[in-house]
């Protein structure tokens, strides 16, 4: 597309040239492990990225009442914003109700999303333990963990969500097949 690109590229790939024209390191600066840790918040479905700590549904009930119920309703239902519980068995109906319990395929996503985005007005304001607790509480509202259940980085990826098998990949970008060749 443009010629400098290839020049610089060649410079980077050929170690011998790295120091010479100094093109590559003119851009940006190395990221330190400490600052990467600060921003590296994503959690995968295998649990990779989940922090140490834990929380129970019992603890989560109070945290939810204080921080979440104003928008999501007392039991994750009937609030002014997204419904978080119920809806199981509605997905093939004419009025599907998509919630954490009826639709979400991974419990890890729930921790990740609350951690990055909720509570809506002050994302990031809950501690790790509080985030685990409120995650456990929302799962308990959906009958996925018991009312006295506890979650942490070991247990969360092992939870089998009710709609885990409810997704079919569009063939062009099916993760299971996409990069198989070669």
């Amino acid at each position, binding site marked *: *597309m*443009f010629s*400098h*690109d290839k020049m*610089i*590229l060649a410079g*980077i*790939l050929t170690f011998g040239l790295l120091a010479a024209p100094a093109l*590559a390191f*003119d*851009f*940006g*600066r*190395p*990221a330190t492990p400490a*600052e*990467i840790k600060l*921003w*590296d*918040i*994503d*959690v*995968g*479905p295998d649990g990779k990225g989940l922090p140490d700590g834990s929380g129970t549904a019992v603890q989560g009930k109070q945290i939810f009442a204080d921080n979440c119920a104003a928008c999501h309703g007392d039991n994750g239902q009937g609030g002014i914003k997204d419904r978080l519980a119920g809806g199981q068995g509605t*997905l*093939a109906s*004419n009025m*599907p109700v*998509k919630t*954490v319990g009826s*639709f*979400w*395929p*991974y419990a*890890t*996503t729930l921790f*990740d*999303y609350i951690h*990055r*985005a909720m509570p*809506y007005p002050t*994302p990031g304001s809950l501690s790790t333990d509080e985030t685990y607790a409120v995650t456990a509480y929302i799962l308990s509202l959906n009958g996925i963990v018991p009312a006295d259940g506890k979650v942490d980085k070991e247990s969360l990826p092992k939870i089998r969500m009710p709609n885990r098998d*409810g*997704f*079919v*990949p*569009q063939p*062009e*970008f*099916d*993760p299971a097949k*996409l*990069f198989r060749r070669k």
Partner: protein
Amino acid sequence: MTSKTSSERSPRSADVSRRGFVGGLSAGLVGVAASEVARAETLADVPDRAPGADLSAHSERSRFAKLDRIPEATPGKRNIDPSDAINSKTPHQKLVGNITPTDLHYERSHSGVPDIDPAQHRLLVHGMVQKPLVFSVEDLKRMPSVTRIVFIECTGNGWENWKKADPDLTVQNTHGLVSTNEWTGVPLKFLIDLVAKDKGSTWMLAEGGDGAGVDRSIPLTEEIVNEAFIAYGQNGEPLRPAHGFPMRLVMPGFEGNLNIKWLRRLKFGNAPWMTRWETARYTQLLANGKAMQFQLRMETNSVITQPSGTMQIQPGYNRISGLAWSGHGKIAKVEISTDGARTWKQAQLAQPVLSKAQVRFQMDWDWDGKPTRIVSRSTDEQGNVQPDRQSFIAAMGTNALFHYNAQQTWSIDETGRVRNVLA
């Protein structure tokens, strides 16, 4: 808006009636256009020339041109308080050409528009790489750049019509979640080379610096690695805050949500992260209750913007015009039917037709004054044809919410009123 204006327009030549029609195109301007026609009936009525306003640092639209986006929420949730809105739609019924004015580019966000000082913004690129790096906006601006005109489309575009068609919708309501701008930035490939990505990395997480930290997993296919870029420029100026200032990902042809705004992190890995936006949102619920996931490409699409919903037309000469686009590449042809999809005629395309950009189409039409339905269908260079409503719904059901690209039909009654219908 839909009141009959024929009495105000009565005596006129063929020329004037054409102007009346053009005025009628902009639903909000009907009154203005009609009175202008009346006031300038002879050249003697045209106001005298006079010195105008002082020059200014920033030019505004004419006070006679009323162009606004409209904030809306999910299907059926219109005319709402902006604080409850989740998107803001482009007024295609009032626009001409291919490029959307910057301030009218559609907008969708998940936690509002952050107010970011570019001096304090950083992009972290890390994960499966040899050299994790941090970039400032200035760093990006010093790098080799690409400039490209592309459409960006929210996967919710068209979602008003999944289950039923409200007859009083404008094309802004039905199709206002797609826009075309020129974007300038650094090829993703360039950053991939700088950080020396591992060969084994096949997926990339892109994350925004908004309150929600919106993040999506992006497969590193050859097409995406070659075409994606990190933009800092929009129609020649810095990005507008609503569109990701100071930097965003641009993914030509792919779901709007993948074009992460306020970009602050790219992480390389080897499997998708299954973020909320690729599981709970932006997956398409099919009739059998299963949801289609990773339907990342935007489909072959088109819509007639003039005449369109809530407009009023007159018998005789009419010019049909609209926009067509495809995430697969260039639009090859657009056909228009003025008899409810029975017969089709090929429309003219505005040249040059660009890959993954909206293109304006047009066709002359002599309306006999009888009730009818008009509809467009596009075909792209890969041979993908925009589906008719019936076969589209047969494949996707009516619960999918996202990725609606069925042909849009407008009905016209004997009074010339244009309405939104399913087919």
